[in-house]
């Protein structure tokens, strides 16, 4: 027999595919939460691989804040077509119009937190019993505590002090009526793993991830796109700079990085020498020390 050793990327891929198939087998109505960022894109490709040549047995759900970069939406629609997936869009704007969510006011207003309302409403509307998310444990300190199969009570809440044990690769997706699971197949991937995988698999990305010229302004040391979704103070000057996104989320909380990286190799080099985390540029985490934990407890992604 030949001697065989999986590379760590192959091992991570295999683990993630195993978990996606486990979800398809254990749940009646799963969905894949698709944000348009690199992690969801990798998730989409993993799902395609896991079930090929059959269609991906769950729809993609995009919780749309209405404050997206145009490129994200174009890319999303093309990808869905390419992979033959079904797309469901939950609209935060609609949640605001129907009074389910209340728009924040002021200069640092963001619809990021409101997404939780729309997300939980969408899960309930379609009776989804498992939502696959592309969160990674290396992203943030509360995420570092997350199980692969994360139980949510009937209000969609996470109880980090009382998580179910999760042993070996045995996943227990049993739940009471009205409860659901969040499942994180790429928990063990790091930001570097994601980029290496994108390179290895030759996955096309939205142009936002590569360097481009854009009108931007600076606030609290973070560079934002100068678009209507973020109201600017008079003192905040708009300049044109060469930037790219390190993560992509809602416009109001996506910080841009000054960069001239125009290939995956360049991006990987940039990340290898970076001294700040990718979420260092996300204002949603900077609101308080336990901002992510609090949002997660309430049912956020």
């Amino acid at each position: 027999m030949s001697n065989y050793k999986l590379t760590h990327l192959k091992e991570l891929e295999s683990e993630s595919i195993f978990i996606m198939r486990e979800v398809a087998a254990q749940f009646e109505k799963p969905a894949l939460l698709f944000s348009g960022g690199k992690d969801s894109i990798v998730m989409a490709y993993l799902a395609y691989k896991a079930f090929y040549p059959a269609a991906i047995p769950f729809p993609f759900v995009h919780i749309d804040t209405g404050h997206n970069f145009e490129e994200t939406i174009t890319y999303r629609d093309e990808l869905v077509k390419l992979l033959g997936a079904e797309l469901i869009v939950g609209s935060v704007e609609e949640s605001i119009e129907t009074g389910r969510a209340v728009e924040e006011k002021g200069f640092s207003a963001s619809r990021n937190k409101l997404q939780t309302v729309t997300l939980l409403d969408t899960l309930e509307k379609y009776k989804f019993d498992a939502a696959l998310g592309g969160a990674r444990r290396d992203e943030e300190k509360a995420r570092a505590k997350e199980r692969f199969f994360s139980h949510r009570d009937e209000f969609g809440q996470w109880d980090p002090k009382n998580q179910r044990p999760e042993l070996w690769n045995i996943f227990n997706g049993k739940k009471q009526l009205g409860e659901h699971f969040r499942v994180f197949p790429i928990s063990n991937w790091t930001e570097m793993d994601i980029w290496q995988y994108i390179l290895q698999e030759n996955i096309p990305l939205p142009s936002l991830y590569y360097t481009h010229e854009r009108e931007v302004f600076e606030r609290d040391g973070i560079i934002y796109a100068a678009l209507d979704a973020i109201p600017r103070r008079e003192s905040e000057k708009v300049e044109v700079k060469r930037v790219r996104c390190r993560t992509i989320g809602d416009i109001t909380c996506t910080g841009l990085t000054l960069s001239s990286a125009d290939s995956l190799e360049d991006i990987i080099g940039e990340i290898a020498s970076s001294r700040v985390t990718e979420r260092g540029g996300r204002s949603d985490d900077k609101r308080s020390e336990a901002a992510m934990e609090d949002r997660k407890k309430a049912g956020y992604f």
Partner: protein
Amino acid sequence: MKDTTGYLDMELLRFSTAGSVDDGKSTLIGRLLYDSKSIFEDQLQAVKEASKRLGGGEEVNLALLTDGLRAEREQGITIDVAYRYFATPKRKFIIADTPGHIEYTRNMVTGASTADVAIILIDARNGIIEQSKRHSYIASLLQIPNVIVAVNKMDLVDFSETVYNDIKKEYEEIAAVLKLKNVIFIPISARDGDNVVDASKKTPWYQGETLLHLLETLPVRKDETKLPSRFPVQYIIRPHSDEFHDYRGYAGRISGGSFKVGDEVVILPSKTESKITAIDEGNKSLDEAFTPQSVTIRLADNVDISRGDIIVRKSETRPTVSANVSLLVCWLNHRPLNEGGKYIIRHATEETRAIIKDVHFKVNINTLENILDDKTVKMNDIAHISIKTLKPLKYDSYGENRITGSLVLIDENTFETVGAGMIVHNLEDETYTI
């Protein structure tokens, strides 16, 4: 641009921390990340601010790098496992920093269950205490291939060689009883960094490696691709499309050995025979696939196969097919094990129900002896039990195969995972204590 090509084929090592509350596990992980330059500036800044806010003054509390929950920071203890990642030019690491508090033993087991190395910390001032033994026992049950015993807080005992040697000697006796394999000792100060990444000048009497060097060089687990082949069927792929009208594939993760196109196979429990016609991975077809690859196997005959069945090579040792299973169980729930009660069982990709037939004994963690007269298995107890399942399981012993040799028990009403089971054939033959 930095050279990142080496990164593509690095080895992965998973390790977890263990030991009693406050022995310094989280501080050690923080120190390891910090001294190996794996901390980002914004993370360090956040931890500095939190340290100050929590009353630590200017001293950075490195434990906060893993103790990320609000409740953990308020109480100064770890409650649930934190996973951290870092890489050196030699290896890529997945760290599970687990809690020492007895209340959260279930979370320690969670973190340890996938580890290749366990670092067991012992506070040099307190020596080996019950919780150190419990975690060692669990490491032995889980058959973690390497155990590093880190005698910590050496700074508080003046880096005394005598203190270190006394603890080492006492632990060696325990390791012998527990039949722990490959035990390595190291004197450290997690707080100050002695022997963590850099060799300490304060322990001239210690000739061994630093902790990081050990982690970079210890052998990863035994080669699972050499085991008898096991393929638990996870999901059936049938496209229902015109292009793939007749496609019928069995998806799963290889859980022992390897499979080749052309292999004669047997499907268990039905004992139906067939032959592998294709092994697919996404839209690529492979000639051969190995543990732990996730693939889709196609067979020559249209046989009746469902999730939970196991495909094995005909020429190799088969798993035991039986409804009677003997196991060592680590109990994880406040509600005690109910002898005679029914539980849901998950084993590989199979789910069935089982009745607890017998509790043979439970373990006294302090004396490491078996208790035969008290059979109430409470939270954190370790016991030897027998169960009878509704559907027969296709199993190996845990010593033979970690995947087909392990199972979990699930409460029928609450659906909580209440027990971790390691299957044994015959206790005397196994590498266990008992």
